[in-house]
């Protein structure tokens, strides 16, 4: 058993960088960028080493399962002899994979930001927030204890708030940061309720213990959890569904997705790191971590699957109509995370049934790479054009050749074209869906087609379509600084190469996975992608009037898709008209008049009583004499009768 306690440094280094750059960064602004990048480089190196040790050294040869090892554990709060909150590091196939993903993407974003955020006044603050986020996310993925994960979950939310609201002088950025935090916090309510129910029934907060106890069908704990029911669903089902709701908030599943498009107000590297590759997959990671328990409750898995596929489809439709680059990419992210969710939802547990699980994890890995690449490329374009709108762009392929090539690679990957990595992961998920639920498979296939369509629409409108005159000015800088190019190229290479990692050997639900490669579903997936690409090419390669004709013929449907199906308006309506009027305003009234009023009443009463009493000391001798006389008579009576 190897000693993995060096993983502690993977967590400590970003935390130390956060503290140093946060406290002292103002004095050495540009050095803080180098410090952050260096720290993340070391952390990435340690993660790669850990992955190497775990996956390769840990087991040479076939037929090995990778156990989950506790590398480090510290009891923090002991509630009772059996219940405690520990802080620890769990080394497990998915946590090692996530370590690699998070540190790699974070490293790329650190490098990229050296160029992108150059000249920014709060440069060191930016890097300290980035390090805080990295620390929180890393802590989340190695959590041994569900409460530890919750603590880091909230920390991630805070970092996201800080980073989205980085340009705090823009009111839209502030509003977006608040929205992100509030929506995810609201979802965390469900998460907390789920944690409490789950830990109550399994009498432990530790992941390994919970999984062990909930898998054991004969044990009284499991039957207890399954029989105790509320409104027809067992307690275990409720716990898992509530935990999923928390994950859905963080992963921007419908209907808690409203914060993700607005969170694009943050700087683009932040969007690449947080809202594409790492934070938004935290929900998927949560379900994956508790997957053994989820697999015991089919209702919960179905819930996960349907929410996932609906979000995927919903987001894909909206993405077809948006004109802001980052909004398109945000909805694309939501759609791909929907894929990961329903990949988990259609998965079984044993043997080849677990294809959905490892496919989902594989898609998480590859999606991180190519979505980060897409965002960073979009950032390069925005850096060049100084605008986010697709209407301002067109025909950039000559001016930005490297970005063009990398962006094309990423778009091909997301459309699922072999031999890029996206093909392998998407094909795995769709195959799993085919074996499990035909409806989900059909919708998934349709979504794949839409994905290819809107991604290539984006690509063509940025780099090819020259329907507008060149209204943008070229700054005196070239395509992009070296740091931005470096990170884009690295991610491009990762996108190409990641498909060839034998993922299904490494990351499985339970034991080794026997993957049979079926040709038919693979061809169906590729065909869907090619159809989408073809339609996009027809509409957008050269300027044409087809898009406008189609959008006007679709009329209302197009309009509502463009307006994101009015979900935001619905939320605003519910909060403003219903919650504010029915609950907040009476509550505020009660608080002001009754609670405050009773306190004020207390003080006013005291004041009045004291004013009445102070009249006794009137300064008039005659009054004093009367009191004296009355007291004397009273004393006389007392002495005579009561002595």
């Amino acid at each position, binding site marked *: 058993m190897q000693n993995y306690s060096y993983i502690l440094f993977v967590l400590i280094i970003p935390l130390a960088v956060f503290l140093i750059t946060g406290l002292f960064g103002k004095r050495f602004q540009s050095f803080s960028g180098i410090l952050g990048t260096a720290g993340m480089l070391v952390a990435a190196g340690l993660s790669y080493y850990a992955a190497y040790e775990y996956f390769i050294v840990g087991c040479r040869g076939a037929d090995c399962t990778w156990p989950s090892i506790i590398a480090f554990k510290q009891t923090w709060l002991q509630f009772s002899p059996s219940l405690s909150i520990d802080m620890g590091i769990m080394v497990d196939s998915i946590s090692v994979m996530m370590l690699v993903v998070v540190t790699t993407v974070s490293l790329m974003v650190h490098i990229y930001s050296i160029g992108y955020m150059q000249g920014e006044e709060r440069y060191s603050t930016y890097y300290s927030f980035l390090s805080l986020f990295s620390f929180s996310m890393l802590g989340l993925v190695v959590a041994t204890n569900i409460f530890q994960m919750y603590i880091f979950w909230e920390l991630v939310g805070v970092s996201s708030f800080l980073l989205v609201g980085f340009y705090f002088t823009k009111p839209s950025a502030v509003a977006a940061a608040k929205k992100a935090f509030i929506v995810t916090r609201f979802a965390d309510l469900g998460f907390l309720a789920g944690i409490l129910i789950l830990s109550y029934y399994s009498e432990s907060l530790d992941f390994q213990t919970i999984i062990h106890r909930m898998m054991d069908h004969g044990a009284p704990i499991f039957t207890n959890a399954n029989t105790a029911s509320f409104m027809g669903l067992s307690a275990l089902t409720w716990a898992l569904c509530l935990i999923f709701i928390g994950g859905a908030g963080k992963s921007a599943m419908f209907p808690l997705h409203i914060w993700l498009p607005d969170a694009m107000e943050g700087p683009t590297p932040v969007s690449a790191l947080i809202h594409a590759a790492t934070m938004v997959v935290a929900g998927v990671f949560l379900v994956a971590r508790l997957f053994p328990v989820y697999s015991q409750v089919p209702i919960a898995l179905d819930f996960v699957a349907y929410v996932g596929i609906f979000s995927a489809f919903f987001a894909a439709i909206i993405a077809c109509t948006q004109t802001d680059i980052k909004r398109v990419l945000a909805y694309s992210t939501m759609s791909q995370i929907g894929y990961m969710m329903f990949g988990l939802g259609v998965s079984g547990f044993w043997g080849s049934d677990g294809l959905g699980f490892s496919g989902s994890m594989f898609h998480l890995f590859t999606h991180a790479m190519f979505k980060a690449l897409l965002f960073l490329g979009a950032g390069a374009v925005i850096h060049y054009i100084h605008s986010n709108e697709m209407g301002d762009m067109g025909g950039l392929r000559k001016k930005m050749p490297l970005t063009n090539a990398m962006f094309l690679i990423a778009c091909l990957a997301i459309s699922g074209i072999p031999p890029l990595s996206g093909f392998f992961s998407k094909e795995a998920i769709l195959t799993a869906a085919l074996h499990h639920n035909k409806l989900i498979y059909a919708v998934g296939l349709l979504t794949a087609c839409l994905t290819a369509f809107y991604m290539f629409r984006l690509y063509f409108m940025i780099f090819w379509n020259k329907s507008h005159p060149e209204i943008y000015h070229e700054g005196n800088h070239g395509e992009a600084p070296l740091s931005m190019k470096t990170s884009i190229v690295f991610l491009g290479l990762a996108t190409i190469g990641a498909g060839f990692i034998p993922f299904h050997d490494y990351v499985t639900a339970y034991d080794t996975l026997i993957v049979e490669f079926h040709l038919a579903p693979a061809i169906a997936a590729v065909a869907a992608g090619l159809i989408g690409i073809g339609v996009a090419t027809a509409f957008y390669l050269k300027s044409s009037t087809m898009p406008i004709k189609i959008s006007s013929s679709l009329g209302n449907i197009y309009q509502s898709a463009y307006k994101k199906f009015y979900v935001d308006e619905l939320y605003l309506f519910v909060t403003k008209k219903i919650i504010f009027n029915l609950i907040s305003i009476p509550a505020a009234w009660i608080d002001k008049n009754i609670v405050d009023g009773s306190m004020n009443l207390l003080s006013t009463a005291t004041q009045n009583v004291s004013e009445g009493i102070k009249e006794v000391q009137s300064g008039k001798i*005659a009054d004093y004499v*009367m009191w004296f*006389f*009355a007291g004397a*008579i009273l004393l*006389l*009576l007392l002495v*005579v009768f009561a002595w």
Partner: protein
Amino acid sequence: MEISAFFFYLISSMILVFGILTVTTRKIFRSAIYLLFTLINVAALYFYLNYEFIAAVQIVVYVGGIVVLILFSLFLTHQVAGDLPSPPWQRLVFALLSCLFAFGFAFCLVMKHSFPENKNAPINLTVSYIGKQMLNYGDGGFVLPFEVVSILLLAAMIGCIAIAFKTKKNA
């Protein structure tokens, strides 16, 4: 009724009537005069009880000193003209009731109490006896209170002058 008892009833009724008039009249000068008469009648009571020395002291000090002092102060503070304002009726009622109640209660106590009889023979209280006892530092002497009261009188005299002294600053 004996003639001496008649005199006693006359003197006491005059005391009480003039006393009541003192405290109830609205004109301040008349109040002072009624006080004067009350004090003279008290002195008459002392004469009736055969305590001539005390009666004399009463007339000299009280009537001839204090009442004159009061009259002087009335003139000094320009109070002689005009009526006294009457106090609020709540105070009147309360004072009347409480005084009546207290008087009734105290007098009932007195009536119920059995006072011990005196077995010894009375002494003859002449002025020489009083004078001798005043400066007697032996048994039954009162030289200490005498000296203390002298000092008190001195202090009172100095105090009065100091309090009522008109400094150059006061207008």
